[in-house]
């Protein structure tokens, strides 16, 4: 029942998105824009500083993720569909998991674009070290999206939601981004510093467990008016 509801919410979001590709295309374009802005800011004499690939990857993810979160829930609010969702006789945490899965798919697609792009533009060995980069990205994205989905959902009612989402989300999720950047830049060092990457990966896992548990626990009372 729980999983079925979550998958139904995911399918609903897919069905809406596939009609226009609005959120996906804008998020992808925004992510590329972020990469370009940081490239212009950091590149000197045709060369980017050595650690910048990891930083740009995670910052682009953070920014485009915030945008995607806002857009996804704006759509629910605009169509007044969130009320219907909340009225449905389904466990509330399942709705949360469904929305979270949707955001994760979206951010996953963004990463599919970002990783090769950054590997190409900054000649970073991202694709060669995919075995450890993949778990880092998965854990980091889950940590960010878990908090982001909860906050974006509860901000739907607030008048100042556009500005409040980054204000609330950044201080709380920056530890996740720090762990992601540190782990990735240790991985990109020559030779790759695997023990450090694995240590940061463990920290990311701890964040994921804490954030997902807390979100599932607080989603129900937060969405009750």
């Amino acid at each position, binding site marked *: 029942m729980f999983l079925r509801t979550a998958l139904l919410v995911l399918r609903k979001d897919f069905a809406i998105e596939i009609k226009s590709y609005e959120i996906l295309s804008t998020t992808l374009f925004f992510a590329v824009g972020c990469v370009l802005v940081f490239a212009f800011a950091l590149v000197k004499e045709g060369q980017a500083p050595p650690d910048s690939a990891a930083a740009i990857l995670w910052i682009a993810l953070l920014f485009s993720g915030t945008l995607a979160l806002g857009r996804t829930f704006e759509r629910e609010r605009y169509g007044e569909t969130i009320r219907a969702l909340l009225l449905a006789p389904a466990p509330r945490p399942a709705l949360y998991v469904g929305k979270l899965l949707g955001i994760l798919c979206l951010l996953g697609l963004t990463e599919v674009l970002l990783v090769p792009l950054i590997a190409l533009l900054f000649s970073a060995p991202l694709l060669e070290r995919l075995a450890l980069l993949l778990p880092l990205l998965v854990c980091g994205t889950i940590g960010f999206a878990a908090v982001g989905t909860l906050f974006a959902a*509860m901000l739907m*009612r607030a008048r100042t939601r556009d500005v409040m989402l980054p*204000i*609330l989300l950044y201080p*709380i999720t920056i*530890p996740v981004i720090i762990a992601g950047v540190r782990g990735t830049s240790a991985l990109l060092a020559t030779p790759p510093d695997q023990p450090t990457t694995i240590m940061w990966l463990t*920290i990311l896992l701890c964040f994921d467990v804490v*954030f997902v548990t*807390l979100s599932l626990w607080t989603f129900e009372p937060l969405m009750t*008016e």
Partner: protein
Amino acid sequence: MKKFFVPLAALTAAMFAYAPIAIANAPYESTMLLIQKIFYFHVPSWMAMYAGIAVCGAASVVYLFKSRPAADRLAVAAAELIVLFGAIGLVTGPLWGRKAWGVWWQWDARLTMALLLELVFIAYLLVRAYGGPGSDKLAAAVGIFGTAVSPFVYVSVNIWRTVHPLNTVVPTLRAGMFGPFWFCSAAFLLLFTLLIMMRTQLASEQAMLDELYLAEDDGMV
């Protein structure tokens, strides 16, 4: 609570008046000499901040699940004090760092995370101020997540190489330093208790006044 307020306020005032004398009488640290004395206010302010985080987290959980307005008022009071004591820590820290390390700020784990915690609770206050209706529940979630992040800050110092002293430095202090250190810690925690009592009292009086205004609007009084 009200009965204890005046004696508690007097005791706190007396302790803060005596604190400079106690600090002046404490022995010099072997390498940093006079500069190390800021420690007696720096560490206790972080202790008061962590006390605030514990109170804010617990009160937020109670408010979110039981919807008790008193818990909400306690959480706001605690959040304001977290920002206050965090600001004291963030001012005394760089002052000390400038003399001990030669720079105002180091981007190491402990300092970055302390700044982050301060930002989380400033965000808490921003939500309360500008979030509009329903922002109290929102703020409670921010309080819970902020509290959840804080243990990572506490252990971060041990996993990330850092110039900041480890938490285990406290039991290794020289004999004469313990007295003033615990004295100042007690003074800061007393001040924290006092301020939180005042702030929750003020908030509950505001709530009472609002209720009276509403009742008058309804023509009940």
